[in-house]
Protein backbone atom coordinates (compact mmCIF):
# COMPACT_ATOMS: atom_id res chain seq x y z
CA UNK A 1 0.00 0.00 0.00
CA UNK A 2 1.29 3.44 -0.90
CA UNK A 3 0.69 5.95 1.85
CA UNK A 4 -0.96 9.31 1.35
CA UNK A 5 2.15 11.18 2.43
CA UNK A 6 4.34 9.42 -0.15
CA UNK A 7 1.82 10.43 -2.78
CA UNK A 8 2.37 14.02 -1.67
CA UNK A 9 6.14 13.89 -2.33
CA UNK A 10 6.66 14.15 -6.07
CA UNK A 11 9.58 12.16 -7.45
CA UNK A 12 12.80 14.01 -8.22
CA UNK A 13 12.73 15.96 -11.46
CA UNK A 14 15.11 14.87 -14.22
CA UNK A 15 18.62 16.30 -13.86
CA UNK A 16 18.73 19.82 -15.39
CA UNK A 17 20.60 19.69 -18.68
CA UNK A 18 22.88 22.58 -17.78
CA UNK A 19 23.88 21.20 -14.37
CA UNK A 20 27.66 20.70 -14.08
CA UNK A 21 28.50 17.02 -14.44
CA UNK A 22 31.72 15.04 -13.89
CA UNK A 23 32.72 11.50 -14.81
CA UNK A 24 34.91 11.10 -11.74
CA UNK A 25 33.73 13.52 -9.06
CA UNK A 26 35.68 13.41 -5.76
CA UNK A 27 32.54 12.97 -3.64
CA UNK A 28 33.07 10.76 -0.61
CA UNK A 29 29.89 11.36 1.39
CA UNK A 30 26.41 12.71 0.66
CA UNK A 31 23.96 13.67 3.37
CA UNK A 32 20.25 14.44 3.10
CA UNK A 33 18.68 15.68 6.31
CA UNK A 34 15.27 16.94 7.36
CA UNK A 35 14.88 18.59 10.74
CA UNK A 36 11.33 18.83 12.03
CA UNK A 37 9.35 20.04 15.03
CA UNK A 38 10.31 17.74 17.88
CA UNK A 39 8.07 14.72 18.50
CA UNK A 40 8.64 14.26 22.25
CA UNK A 41 6.42 11.19 22.46
CA UNK A 42 8.72 9.29 20.08
CA UNK A 43 10.85 7.62 22.77
CA UNK A 44 13.43 4.85 22.68
CA UNK A 45 10.79 2.18 23.29
CA UNK A 46 9.38 2.87 19.79
CA UNK A 47 12.71 2.57 18.00
CA UNK A 48 12.39 -1.20 17.57
CA UNK A 49 9.10 -0.62 15.80
CA UNK A 50 10.50 1.81 13.27
CA UNK A 51 13.67 -0.32 12.84
CA UNK A 52 11.42 -3.20 11.73
CA UNK A 53 10.68 -1.10 8.65
CA UNK A 54 14.38 -0.91 7.74
CA UNK A 55 16.17 -3.84 9.39
CA UNK A 56 16.46 -6.06 6.29
CA UNK A 57 18.62 -3.49 4.57
CA UNK A 58 20.00 -1.72 7.66
CA UNK A 59 20.74 -4.49 10.17
CA UNK A 60 23.29 -2.69 12.35
CA UNK A 61 22.00 -0.39 15.09
CA UNK A 62 24.02 1.94 17.32
CA UNK A 63 23.23 4.85 19.60
CA UNK A 64 24.82 8.28 19.21
CA UNK A 65 24.50 11.64 20.92
CA UNK A 66 21.70 13.65 19.30
CA UNK A 67 22.45 16.46 16.86
CA UNK A 68 21.45 19.90 18.15
CA UNK A 69 18.65 21.67 16.28
CA UNK A 70 20.16 24.15 13.83
CA UNK A 71 18.42 27.17 12.32
CA UNK A 72 19.45 29.62 9.63
CA UNK A 73 18.40 33.12 10.70
CA UNK A 74 19.12 36.53 9.20
CA UNK A 75 19.26 40.22 9.84
CA UNK A 76 21.34 40.33 12.96
CA UNK A 77 25.06 40.02 13.50
CA UNK A 78 26.55 36.74 12.31
CA UNK A 79 28.12 34.92 15.23
CA UNK A 80 29.43 31.43 15.69
CA UNK A 81 26.81 28.88 16.65
CA UNK A 82 26.98 27.75 20.26
CA UNK A 83 26.48 24.21 21.44
CA UNK A 84 23.99 23.93 24.26
CA UNK A 85 23.76 20.16 24.23
CA UNK A 86 25.01 19.73 27.76
CA UNK A 87 22.07 21.72 29.10
CA UNK A 88 19.37 20.68 26.68
CA UNK A 89 19.97 17.01 26.03
CA UNK A 90 16.70 15.36 25.03
CA UNK A 91 15.54 12.18 26.75
CA UNK A 92 16.30 10.10 23.66
CA UNK A 93 19.56 9.54 21.74
CA UNK A 94 20.06 9.45 17.98
CA UNK A 95 19.88 6.00 16.42
CA UNK A 96 22.01 4.83 13.51
CA UNK A 97 20.70 2.09 11.22
CA UNK A 98 23.59 0.98 8.98
CA UNK A 99 23.87 -1.36 6.04
CA UNK A 100 26.18 -4.35 6.47
CA UNK A 101 28.92 -2.71 4.40
CA UNK A 102 28.52 0.60 6.23
CA UNK A 103 27.98 2.49 2.98
CA UNK A 104 24.49 3.70 3.78
CA UNK A 105 23.20 5.02 7.04
CA UNK A 106 19.83 6.19 8.32
CA UNK A 107 19.86 8.43 11.39
CA UNK A 108 16.73 9.01 13.48
CA UNK A 109 16.09 11.20 16.49
CA UNK A 110 13.09 13.07 17.89
CA UNK A 111 13.50 16.04 15.57
CA UNK A 112 15.55 14.85 12.61
CA UNK A 113 15.93 12.11 10.00
CA UNK A 114 19.09 11.79 7.96
CA UNK A 115 20.29 9.49 5.19
CA UNK A 116 24.04 9.27 4.45
CA UNK A 117 25.87 7.63 1.59
CA UNK A 118 29.56 7.06 2.36
CA UNK A 119 32.27 5.94 -0.04
CA UNK A 120 34.07 2.98 1.50
CA UNK A 121 36.19 1.79 -1.44
CA UNK A 122 37.94 3.62 -4.27
CA UNK A 123 35.99 1.67 -6.86
CA UNK A 124 32.65 2.75 -5.42
CA UNK A 125 30.61 5.26 -7.39
CA UNK A 126 28.05 7.69 -5.99
CA UNK A 127 24.65 6.26 -6.90
CA UNK A 128 23.38 9.65 -8.19
CA UNK A 129 21.08 12.03 -6.40
CA UNK A 130 17.70 11.16 -7.89
CA UNK A 131 17.39 7.51 -6.76
CA UNK A 132 19.11 8.33 -3.46
CA UNK A 133 16.64 11.16 -2.79
CA UNK A 134 13.63 9.03 -3.79
CA UNK A 135 14.72 6.35 -1.30
CA UNK A 136 14.98 8.98 1.42
CA UNK A 137 11.46 10.15 0.51
CA UNK A 138 10.21 6.60 0.96
CA UNK A 139 12.04 6.20 4.29
CA UNK A 140 10.83 9.44 5.86
CA UNK A 141 7.33 8.65 4.68
CA UNK A 142 7.54 5.32 6.51
CA UNK A 143 8.75 7.17 9.61
CA UNK A 144 5.91 9.70 9.33
CA UNK A 145 3.33 6.94 8.81
CA UNK A 146 4.72 5.13 11.86
CA UNK A 147 4.41 8.25 14.05
CA UNK A 148 0.86 8.83 12.87
CA UNK A 149 -0.14 5.17 13.28
CA UNK A 150 1.16 5.12 16.85
CA UNK A 151 -0.51 8.48 17.55
CA UNK A 152 2.84 10.02 18.49
CA UNK A 153 2.69 13.02 16.16
CA UNK A 154 3.77 13.75 12.61
CA UNK A 155 6.72 15.23 10.76
CA UNK A 156 6.56 19.01 10.28
CA UNK A 157 9.83 20.00 8.60
CA UNK A 158 11.51 23.26 9.59
CA UNK A 159 15.05 22.92 8.13
CA UNK A 160 16.31 20.91 5.16
CA UNK A 161 19.99 20.17 4.58
CA UNK A 162 21.99 18.68 1.76
CA UNK A 163 25.74 18.20 2.22
CA UNK A 164 28.37 16.87 -0.19
CA UNK A 165 31.76 16.02 1.26
CA UNK A 166 34.62 15.69 -1.24
CA UNK A 167 38.11 14.29 -0.85
CA UNK A 168 40.47 16.22 -3.10
CA UNK A 169 44.03 15.43 -4.12
CA UNK A 170 46.13 17.02 -6.88
CA UNK A 171 46.85 14.71 -9.85
CA UNK A 172 50.64 15.19 -10.02
CA UNK A 173 51.02 14.30 -6.32
CA UNK A 174 51.70 17.91 -5.34
CA UNK A 175 50.99 18.47 -1.66
CA UNK A 176 47.43 19.88 -1.74
CA UNK A 177 47.87 21.45 1.70
CA UNK A 178 50.53 23.78 0.34
CA UNK A 179 48.80 24.47 -2.98
CA UNK A 180 45.19 25.20 -2.25
CA UNK A 181 45.31 27.77 -5.06
CA UNK A 182 45.34 24.92 -7.57
CA UNK A 183 42.10 23.57 -6.12
CA UNK A 184 39.96 26.65 -5.52
CA UNK A 185 39.80 30.15 -6.98
CA UNK A 186 38.66 31.35 -3.52
CA UNK A 187 42.30 31.10 -2.35
CA UNK A 188 45.04 32.93 -4.24
CA UNK A 189 47.89 32.10 -1.89
CA UNK A 190 49.54 35.46 -2.53
CA UNK A 191 51.37 37.90 -0.27
CA UNK A 192 51.60 41.67 -0.57
CA UNK A 193 55.29 41.44 0.41
CA UNK A 194 57.49 38.36 0.07
CA UNK A 195 58.05 37.70 3.74
CA UNK A 196 56.38 34.44 4.72
CA UNK A 197 58.02 31.08 3.98
CA UNK A 198 56.34 28.28 2.05
CA UNK A 199 52.70 27.78 3.03
CA UNK A 200 52.15 24.79 5.29
CA UNK A 201 48.36 24.72 4.91
CA UNK A 202 45.29 26.94 4.76
CA UNK A 203 41.61 26.63 5.54
CA UNK A 204 38.98 28.48 3.53
CA UNK A 205 35.53 28.93 5.01
CA UNK A 206 32.82 30.86 3.19
CA UNK A 207 29.08 31.19 3.39
CA UNK A 208 26.50 32.69 1.07
CA UNK A 209 22.88 33.68 1.71
CA UNK A 210 20.29 31.91 -0.44
CA UNK A 211 17.33 34.02 -1.56
CA UNK A 212 14.03 33.42 -3.26
CA UNK A 213 12.17 36.49 -4.54
CA UNK A 214 14.73 38.65 -2.68
CA UNK A 215 13.85 36.96 0.63
CA UNK A 216 16.55 35.00 2.46
CA UNK A 217 15.62 31.39 3.13
CA UNK A 218 18.92 29.65 3.80
CA UNK A 219 22.68 29.56 3.36
CA UNK A 220 25.27 27.54 1.53
CA UNK A 221 28.41 26.88 3.57
CA UNK A 222 31.71 26.05 1.87
CA UNK A 223 34.70 24.67 3.77
CA UNK A 224 38.10 23.67 2.39
CA UNK A 225 39.94 21.88 5.20
CA UNK A 226 43.40 20.27 5.11
CA UNK A 227 43.21 16.67 6.29
CA UNK A 228 45.02 13.32 6.04
CA UNK A 229 43.46 10.32 4.34
CA UNK A 230 42.69 7.64 6.87
CA UNK A 231 43.91 4.87 4.53
CA UNK A 232 47.50 6.05 4.01
CA UNK A 233 47.90 9.39 5.84
CA UNK A 234 48.34 11.13 2.49
CA UNK A 235 47.49 14.83 2.58
CA UNK A 236 44.18 15.81 1.02
CA UNK A 237 41.74 18.69 1.08
CA UNK A 238 38.26 17.96 2.35
CA UNK A 239 35.70 20.17 0.66
CA UNK A 240 32.35 20.28 2.42
CA UNK A 241 29.48 22.10 0.74
CA UNK A 242 26.35 22.26 2.86
CA UNK A 243 23.09 23.97 1.90
CA UNK A 244 20.51 24.49 4.63
CA UNK A 245 17.24 26.38 4.62
CA UNK A 246 13.67 26.69 5.72
CA UNK A 247 11.03 25.09 3.51
CA UNK A 248 8.13 27.25 2.34
CA UNK A 249 5.69 25.08 4.28
CA UNK A 250 5.92 22.51 7.07
CA UNK A 251 5.18 19.64 4.69
CA UNK A 252 7.26 16.80 3.29
CA UNK A 253 6.37 17.91 -0.23
CA UNK A 254 7.79 21.37 0.44
CA UNK A 255 10.81 19.87 2.22
CA UNK A 256 11.73 17.71 -0.78
CA UNK A 257 11.25 20.63 -3.18
CA UNK A 258 13.83 22.46 -1.08
CA UNK A 259 16.19 19.45 -0.93
CA UNK A 260 16.07 19.29 -4.75
CA UNK A 261 16.84 23.00 -4.99
CA UNK A 262 19.67 22.70 -2.46
CA UNK A 263 21.23 19.81 -4.36
CA UNK A 264 21.24 21.91 -7.52
CA UNK A 265 22.79 24.81 -5.58
CA UNK A 266 25.49 22.49 -4.22
CA UNK A 267 26.43 21.12 -7.63
CA UNK A 268 26.65 24.62 -9.11
CA UNK A 269 28.58 25.81 -6.03
CA UNK A 270 31.02 22.91 -6.42
CA UNK A 271 31.74 23.96 -10.01
CA UNK A 272 32.04 27.61 -8.96
CA UNK A 273 34.49 27.10 -6.09
CA UNK A 274 36.78 24.54 -7.73
CA UNK A 275 39.38 25.27 -10.38
CA UNK A 276 39.25 24.52 -14.11
CA UNK A 277 42.38 22.39 -13.64
CA UNK A 278 40.54 20.17 -11.18
CA UNK A 279 37.46 20.10 -13.43
CA UNK A 280 39.62 18.58 -16.16
CA UNK A 281 41.04 16.05 -13.67
CA UNK A 282 37.52 15.04 -12.64
CA UNK A 283 36.55 14.88 -16.34
CA UNK A 284 33.82 17.50 -16.54
CA UNK A 285 31.41 16.41 -19.23
CA UNK A 286 28.63 19.02 -19.41
CA UNK A 287 28.72 21.69 -22.10
CA UNK A 288 29.40 24.67 -19.84
CA UNK A 289 33.14 23.97 -19.44
Amino acid at each position, binding site marked *: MVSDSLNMIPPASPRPADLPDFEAPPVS*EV*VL*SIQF*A*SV*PRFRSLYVGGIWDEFRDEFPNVTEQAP*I*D*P*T*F*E*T*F*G*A*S*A*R*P*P*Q*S*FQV*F*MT*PPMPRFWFETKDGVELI*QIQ*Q*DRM*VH*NWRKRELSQHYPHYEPFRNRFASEITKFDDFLVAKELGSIKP*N*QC*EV*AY*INTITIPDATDPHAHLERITPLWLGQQSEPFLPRLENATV*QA*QYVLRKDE*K*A*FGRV*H*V*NFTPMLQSSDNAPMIQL*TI*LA*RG*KPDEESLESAFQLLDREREIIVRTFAAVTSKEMHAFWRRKDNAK
Partner: protein
Amino acid sequence: MQNNTARQLIEDIERSGSNVMTTAAGAGTPPAPPRLNFNRFAEYYGAPSDQKWQIEILKRLFELTQMSPDWDSYGAPVPTRDASFFVLEILNNVMRSRTPIPQVVPSSVGGIQLEWHEKDIDLELHVTAPYQCEVWFHDRRSGAPTSTELTNDFSSLSAPISELTLR
Protein backbone atom coordinates in the same frame (compact mmCIF):
# COMPACT_ATOMS: atom_id res chain seq x y z
CA MET B 1 37.71 39.14 40.07
CA GLN B 2 39.01 42.04 37.99
CA ASN B 3 41.51 39.72 36.40
CA ASN B 4 38.71 37.36 35.46
CA THR B 5 36.67 40.16 33.95
CA ALA B 6 39.68 41.41 32.05
CA ARG B 7 40.37 37.91 30.81
CA GLN B 8 36.76 37.69 29.62
CA LEU B 9 37.22 40.94 27.74
CA ILE B 10 40.33 39.58 26.10
CA GLU B 11 38.54 36.37 25.24
CA ASP B 12 35.69 38.39 23.73
CA ILE B 13 38.18 40.13 21.51
CA GLU B 14 40.19 37.07 20.63
CA ARG B 15 37.26 34.77 20.05
CA SER B 16 37.54 33.24 16.63
CA GLY B 17 35.26 31.06 14.57
CA SER B 18 36.27 27.85 16.30
CA ASN B 19 32.71 26.70 17.02
CA VAL B 20 32.41 24.83 13.76
CA MET B 21 30.04 21.95 13.67
CA THR B 22 30.70 19.24 11.14
CA THR B 23 28.97 17.22 8.44
CA ALA B 24 25.17 17.10 8.75
CA ALA B 25 25.17 19.21 11.86
CA GLY B 26 26.16 22.30 9.91
CA ALA B 27 28.95 24.68 9.25
CA GLY B 28 30.37 27.52 11.27
CA THR B 29 29.80 31.19 11.08
CA PRO B 30 32.56 33.77 11.43
CA PRO B 31 32.02 36.03 14.41
CA ALA B 32 31.49 39.75 14.25
CA PRO B 33 34.47 41.34 16.01
CA PRO B 34 33.47 43.03 19.27
CA ARG B 35 33.67 46.81 19.19
CA LEU B 36 35.47 48.43 22.10
CA ASN B 37 34.99 52.13 22.68
CA PHE B 38 37.65 53.22 25.16
CA ASN B 39 35.42 55.96 26.62
CA ARG B 40 32.92 53.33 27.62
CA PHE B 41 35.54 50.99 28.95
CA ALA B 42 34.53 51.30 32.61
CA GLU B 43 30.88 50.75 31.78
CA TYR B 44 31.77 47.81 29.59
CA TYR B 45 34.04 46.44 32.29
CA GLY B 46 31.21 45.97 34.76
CA ALA B 47 28.65 44.79 32.23
CA PRO B 48 27.40 41.27 31.71
CA SER B 49 29.63 39.25 29.45
CA ASP B 50 28.50 36.87 26.74
CA GLN B 51 29.27 34.05 29.09
CA LYS B 52 27.11 35.54 31.82
CA TRP B 53 23.98 35.95 29.71
CA GLN B 54 24.44 32.53 28.22
CA ILE B 55 24.74 30.89 31.61
CA GLU B 56 21.72 32.71 33.02
CA ILE B 57 19.53 32.09 29.97
CA LEU B 58 20.55 28.44 29.74
CA LYS B 59 19.80 27.93 33.40
CA ARG B 60 16.37 29.50 32.98
CA LEU B 61 15.55 27.55 29.81
CA PHE B 62 16.58 24.36 31.51
CA GLU B 63 14.20 25.20 34.38
CA LEU B 64 11.36 25.82 31.92
CA THR B 65 11.88 22.54 30.06
CA GLN B 66 11.80 20.68 33.39
CA MET B 67 8.36 22.03 34.34
CA SER B 68 5.40 19.69 34.53
CA PRO B 69 2.58 19.84 31.98
CA ASP B 70 -0.38 21.95 33.13
CA TRP B 71 2.04 24.20 35.01
CA ASP B 72 -0.52 27.04 34.93
CA SER B 73 -3.45 24.74 35.92
CA TYR B 74 -5.12 25.67 32.63
CA GLY B 75 -3.55 22.84 30.63
CA ALA B 76 -0.46 24.70 29.38
CA PRO B 77 2.18 22.45 27.79
CA VAL B 78 5.85 22.55 28.76
CA PRO B 79 7.94 24.86 26.52
CA THR B 80 9.39 22.77 23.71
CA ARG B 81 13.05 21.99 23.17
CA ASP B 82 12.72 23.44 19.65
CA ALA B 83 11.48 26.76 20.99
CA SER B 84 14.34 26.82 23.52
CA PHE B 85 16.96 26.31 20.84
CA PHE B 86 15.35 28.92 18.63
CA VAL B 87 15.39 31.41 21.52
CA LEU B 88 19.10 30.71 21.94
CA GLU B 89 19.66 31.19 18.22
CA ILE B 90 17.95 34.59 18.33
CA LEU B 91 19.77 35.74 21.45
CA ASN B 92 23.09 34.53 20.12
CA ASN B 93 22.52 36.82 17.14
CA VAL B 94 21.17 39.93 18.86
CA MET B 95 22.78 40.06 22.30
CA ARG B 96 25.77 42.33 22.71
CA SER B 97 28.18 42.42 25.59
CA ARG B 98 26.29 45.19 27.40
CA THR B 99 22.73 44.24 26.49
CA PRO B 100 20.60 43.71 29.62
CA ILE B 101 19.65 40.08 30.19
CA PRO B 102 15.93 39.54 29.46
CA GLN B 103 13.40 37.86 31.68
CA VAL B 104 12.49 34.46 30.29
CA VAL B 105 8.96 33.25 30.95
CA PRO B 106 6.91 30.34 29.61
CA SER B 107 3.82 30.99 27.53
CA SER B 108 0.59 29.07 27.75
CA VAL B 109 0.98 27.60 24.23
CA GLY B 110 4.31 25.87 24.89
CA GLY B 111 6.35 28.83 23.77
CA ILE B 112 8.86 31.12 25.47
CA GLN B 113 8.65 34.85 25.98
CA LEU B 114 11.65 37.16 26.37
CA GLU B 115 10.96 40.46 28.11
CA TRP B 116 12.93 43.64 28.66
CA HIS B 117 11.28 46.41 30.68
CA GLU B 118 13.84 49.08 31.50
CA LYS B 119 15.25 52.44 30.37
CA ASP B 120 11.72 53.47 29.25
CA ILE B 121 11.72 50.58 26.82
CA ASP B 122 9.32 47.66 26.71
CA LEU B 123 10.44 44.89 24.38
CA GLU B 124 8.76 41.49 24.32
CA LEU B 125 9.54 38.62 21.99
CA HIS B 126 7.22 35.64 21.99
CA VAL B 127 8.59 32.47 20.36
CA THR B 128 5.84 29.87 19.95
CA ALA B 129 7.95 27.57 17.75
CA PRO B 130 10.95 27.88 15.42
CA TYR B 131 10.24 30.62 12.89
CA GLN B 132 7.00 31.60 14.65
CA CYS B 133 7.66 34.75 16.65
CA GLU B 134 5.98 38.01 17.50
CA VAL B 135 7.81 41.08 18.73
CA TRP B 136 6.15 43.91 20.65
CA PHE B 137 8.16 47.11 21.15
CA HIS B 138 7.36 50.37 22.90
CA ASP B 139 9.88 53.15 23.43
CA ARG B 140 8.06 55.37 25.88
CA ARG B 141 10.29 58.31 24.99
CA SER B 142 9.62 58.35 21.30
CA GLY B 143 6.55 56.66 19.99
CA ALA B 144 3.59 54.35 19.90
CA PRO B 145 3.97 50.62 20.48
CA THR B 146 4.51 48.38 17.47
CA SER B 147 3.89 44.70 16.96
CA THR B 148 5.51 42.61 14.23
CA GLU B 149 5.48 38.96 13.27
CA LEU B 150 8.91 37.49 12.55
CA THR B 151 10.04 34.26 10.93
CA ASN B 152 13.72 34.04 10.01
CA ASP B 153 14.72 37.71 9.66
CA PHE B 154 15.49 39.49 12.93
CA SER B 155 16.81 42.76 11.56
CA SER B 156 13.86 44.60 13.13
CA LEU B 157 15.28 43.70 16.55
CA SER B 158 18.52 45.55 15.90
CA ALA B 159 17.21 49.03 16.73
CA PRO B 160 15.39 48.08 19.97
CA ILE B 161 18.36 46.02 21.16
CA SER B 162 20.67 48.86 20.29
CA GLU B 163 18.59 51.26 22.39
CA LEU B 164 18.50 48.82 25.29
CA THR B 165 22.24 48.38 25.08
CA LEU B 166 23.39 51.95 24.61
CA ARG B 167 20.77 54.13 26.37
